[in-house]
């Protein structure tokens, strides 16, 4: 049987979306996309996949977070080359949009600094709307423990994302 091409076709958009939320840089995202499907293919040989969308979202998030964390460790690309947000290279945007993009970049960077289980739990719950029980199953922990991780993640992110000090020119 060869269901693989149809699995890829059916879920490519979902996986891409999941990855691009975390990784703005297209080449990095494309690599992450390949790594996600390669990992999914390998894993599916070890276990029966009941629900491909959730399965792929979890892997994609995990892969993207790994890449994000790796980039974060490289630091220079994160903070100076704008590998995530590429805000410097974007065409001029309204100030409000630019500010939001900066927020997005800051959030991604902050998530990359979290312990991995907190980062994964936070991202899956917040952006992929996975129930705690399912995240727990993915991480090998209880739903209650997921709640604890989310609490810790939010607390850490709050201190990282804010207070933000914005400097503006007064007329």
């Amino acid at each position, binding site marked *: *049987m*060869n*269901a*693989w*091409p149809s*699995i*890829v*076709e059916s879920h*490519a*958009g979902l996986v*891409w*979306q999941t990855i*691009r*939320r975390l990784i*703005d840089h*297209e080449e990095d995202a*494309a690599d992450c*996309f*390949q790594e996600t*499907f*390669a990992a*999914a*293919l*390998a894993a*599916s*040989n*070890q276990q*029966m*996949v*009941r*629900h*491909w969308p*959730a399965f792929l979202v979890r892997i994609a998030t995990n892969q993207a977070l790994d890449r994000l964390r790796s980039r974060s460790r490289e630091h220079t690309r994160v903070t100076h080359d704008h590998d995530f947000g590429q805000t410097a290279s974007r065409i001029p945007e309204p100030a409000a*949009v630019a500010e*939001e*993009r900066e*927020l*997005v970049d*800051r*959030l*991604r960077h902050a998530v990359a600094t979290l312990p991995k289980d907190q980062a994964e739990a936070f991202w899956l719950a*917040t*952006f992929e709307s996975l*129930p705690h029980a*399912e995240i727990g*199953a993915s991480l090998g922990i209880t739903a209650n423990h997921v709640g604890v991780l989310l609490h810790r993640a*939010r607390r850490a*992110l*709050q*201190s990282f*994302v*804010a*207070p*933000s*000090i*914005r*400097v*503006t*020119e*007064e007329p």
Partner: protein
Amino acid sequence: MSLNHHADAGSSLDRAIEATRRLTAAPHVPPHVVARARNLAASGHTVPRPVEPAPPSLAAPHGFGGSRRTLLQVALTLALLVGVGVAATLSGLLQPTSAFAAAVEQVRKMSVVRFVSEVNYAGSVSRFTQIQTAAGITRLEMGGDAGVALVDSRAGTMVHLVPAERKAFVSQTERADRPDQDLFKYFEAIAPNDGQPQGRERVDGIDTEVFKVTQGGSTQTFWINPATLLPVRMTQQFDMSGSLMTITMKDFEWDPEVDPALLVVAVPEGYARSDLNPAAPAAEKPVAVDETAAGVNPAAQEPAATEPDAAFADFFRLCSEVDAGRLPDDLSRATVMAITKRITEDPKFAAKKHRMGAAAGSLFGVQIGLGMTGEKLHYLGKGRRANDGKGIVAWYTVGKTTTAINDDFSTRIIAPNDVPALPKAE
């Protein structure tokens, strides 16, 4: 120039989340990226197994129909099957798992299973052979002179045959029109996503995939044959009054040929029939106790307890019958086994032997069921006698239902607030 401090941390995080949602909307996937992924399988990666999509939201009623009450009933009914030795046939108690969902599906296609169950508890091992059908019939071969138990779980009938004595003991068990009393019903109710993959392990010469489910106070492990997608072995472990009990189900034969005569739940010709259920249901017996002193609300007209509860209460009645009206000091395994041994070995109690088997089995069933749900059996019988007028002897709560056993061995359901004060030891 001015500084704008966004000091509201929560608000900033929420804004960042909202911005991420809006600004990272899915762009088009570059076709060459998809093409590369499509070719993964052709470039040396192995092709995945068949897909059985199932929305995660379908996940699981928790085993045995999800009811704590039901868990107890299962434990109780199954324990009743075995009787004295050690509440034996608990093998049907195994709980469900998930990614082995394919195995769940396979089991659901089966109609008969034969297997061996082993109960390892406090250093002793009891071994049984079972045949179960999807129609709710169980045959339990206990070995030696213990005989055979036949259960029609849908009719709620159990017949315990003792060929050596040409005797048949008939009792009513909890009816099993819920997914709880047999392996098939149990697999019908399984929550496919509950199982945690544990890797692979070679069992009985088969490279199996292992899954684990932890639920309530018990842990279940399943070894699945990836070729047949059927269980090769299952175990359940739980703490029972401080001792670890392990139930192992193994040597499965799925859909074997079975002589239908082995599965007839009836008293065979030439067997003397005895009915094990207590003669007087709880509701018919007045409670000759000082209910106010016992903390029971006499005005409350609670429903009678179920028949298995009554069988459980029969344990206390039997204890008093063989000990000049005295109730046991505690319900530890050592105490129960000592009483059981006395009854089974003393010829003057021969007539009570099988009744005690069922009663002790029901006690273990209650303890196990409560242990699995994190509840406890409370006992107030130390130093007391039957019909001493002091009211409740024991009680337990499952969900919102509290069942009490009185000093006259009647049972009834009482309001949770009406239970007596706990002894200091508890």
